């Protein structure tokens, strides 16, 4: 049927199949966008361009959702989690793949076991632990557990990279009299850059989109992640459709913009995150 010759046929098939899927993917966002332009307090239709778009809703939502503070807070959380988590995962991945760590197999197995633990299974004890540490409500309350929760994936990811790196490189470095640190710093780290940047993207997404931890561990919505703040915003303005939609879009916007700008590396990272 679909012989290589029938190029036109292929084109039609893929268009007919992919375009509806694409419409399905964006239509809830479009629906929110048109609703965001309706007058506040009105009952906008699901999808239709308003006669008099109220662009001011976005400014109103910015203030109502306290977005300046929320974005600042998310950035702080990302800065607290991502660099440290990437550094720890890189070091551990390198150690487990290239150095002979005593008990390395056991340590690696222990970390891998963490991949299947749902966050919900840990949130109850975490709440009481963080409380007894006196950190409840602070940003550290999210930063510390999240860094720990990201370790299984991060170590797995970086170990897979360093395991594929040439062991001969390490040996050559040792023959030249390099210390372990110099060999890592001069030889392996530069080669690991693609793996590290992909991991950074994935960790960024995981932190920025994190909802459960901030919801439970930080009671003040303004100090949460953007995702955590969005939940609170919905609770507060659930009935004001226009304002809720405008605020939600503003909250989504940074992820969307970053994704569209970096879409190639994002798609790559997510696909390769799945398959190597």
């Amino acid at each position, binding site marked *: 049927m679909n012989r290589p010759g029938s190029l036109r046929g292929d084109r039609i098939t893929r268009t007919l199949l992919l375009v509806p899927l694409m419409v399905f993917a964006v239509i809830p966002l479009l629906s929110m966008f048109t609703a965001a332009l309706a007058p506040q307090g009105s009952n906008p239709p699901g999808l239709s361009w308003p006669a008099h778009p109220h662009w001011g809703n976005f400014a109103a939502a910015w203030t109502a959702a306290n977005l300046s503070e929320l974005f600042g807070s998310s950035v702080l959380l990302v800065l607290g989690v991502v660099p440290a988590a990437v550094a720890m995962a890189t070091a551990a991945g390198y150690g487990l793949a290239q150095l002979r760590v005593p008990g390395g197999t056991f340590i690696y197995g222990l970390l891998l076991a963490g991949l299947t633990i749902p966050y919900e299974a840990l949130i109850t004890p975490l709440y009481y632990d963080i409380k007894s540490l006196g950190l409840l409500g602070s940003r550290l309350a999210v930063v510390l557990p999240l860094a720990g929760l990201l370790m299984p994936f991060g170590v797995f990811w970086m170990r897979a990279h360093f395991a594929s790196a040439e062991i001969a490189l390490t040996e050559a470095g040792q023959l030249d009299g390099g210390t372990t640190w110099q060999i890592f710093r001069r030889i392996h780290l530069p080669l690991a850059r693609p793996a590290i940047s992909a991991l950074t993207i994935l960790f960024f997404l995981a932190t920025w989109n994190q909802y459960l931890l901030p919801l439970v561990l930080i009671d003040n919505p303004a100090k949460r992640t953007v995702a955590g703040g969005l*939940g609170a915003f919905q609770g507060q303005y659930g009935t004001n459709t226009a304002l809720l939609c405008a605020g939600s879009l503003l909250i989504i916007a940074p992820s969307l913009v970053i994704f569209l700008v970096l879409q190639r590396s994002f798609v790559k990272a997510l696909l390769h995150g799945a398959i190597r």
Partner: protein
Amino acid sequence: MSRLHAATSTKTALRAPVSAADPVPGGPVPARGTLAGRPRARRARPRQWTALLWVAPALLCYAAFVLYPLGQSIQYSFYYWDGIGTATPAGLANWQAIFTQPELLSALVHAVELIVFYTLIPVGAGLAAATLIRELKPGPFSTVSRTILFIPQVLPLVAAGVAWTWMYSSGGLVNQILRATGLGGITRAWLGDFTFALPAVGVIGVWVMLGFCTVLLLSGIGKIDPALYEAASLDGAGRLRQFRAVTLPGLRRELVVCTTFTIVAALASFDIIQVSTQGGPGYQTIVPGVEIYRLTFLDQRIGQASALGIFLTIVVLLVIWPIQRLGRTD
């Protein structure tokens, strides 16, 4: 979050044969003398206690914030505790309750039902689309479609919940479309409907997962050698046989990833449901994640919440394990 988890656990299995070939650091430390015949090995890979320093930060962080709470959770699950007073031993009561209390049991049943929406529909539809398209040549259309299909996967799940809460509301787009197509009779507030709330929440899962599965399977099918299809069709294999003999085996890794990833997301769902229905109406959309949250922070039944959490972890493990094995057989 569980997104990361799922994706990885698959790779684990895929790579297992490789890691099996790795040296076994857990083995006995050979005395220096025994390595005399293998100077290379001694020079390149001496076992170093200092190497532990590389692993220590990650391991400590993980132990403190994952392993330790996990142990606590197991311990709590055998106690009655309200989070403030003293805990009293509960024996297996919290565990029995999972199977006897309707609210807890239905949370588990719903989690399994969500697999239909999070996994079967997206993987099935993605597989169908990938098979029919087979090859998406690089070009603007390919880039644009990949990007757009990926958008739901990149947004916070909370945003998916908010967007669809609006879509499903009485004035929302779903009802608008129904009215426009003459189906005005069946319009309703979908998320508040006792019969349709769970499928409605499930469709949000379809929205999040469909694009990801499609793009992943498309990229996988593009890597299958076209010669295999030619050979199959020369052998007189019809499309169905080609699908079974070439496409399915060729996509095994991708299929394992998609299913693992989406099943974990279904079993451990929280964000979407907490935002859109909070488990309601009644307990119609309650899932383990939301139930654990309720038990801990509304009912103060810490022991019960912990038992459910540990049980959920076990369920995830039991479901994922055979799928991983499937991906490994090679």
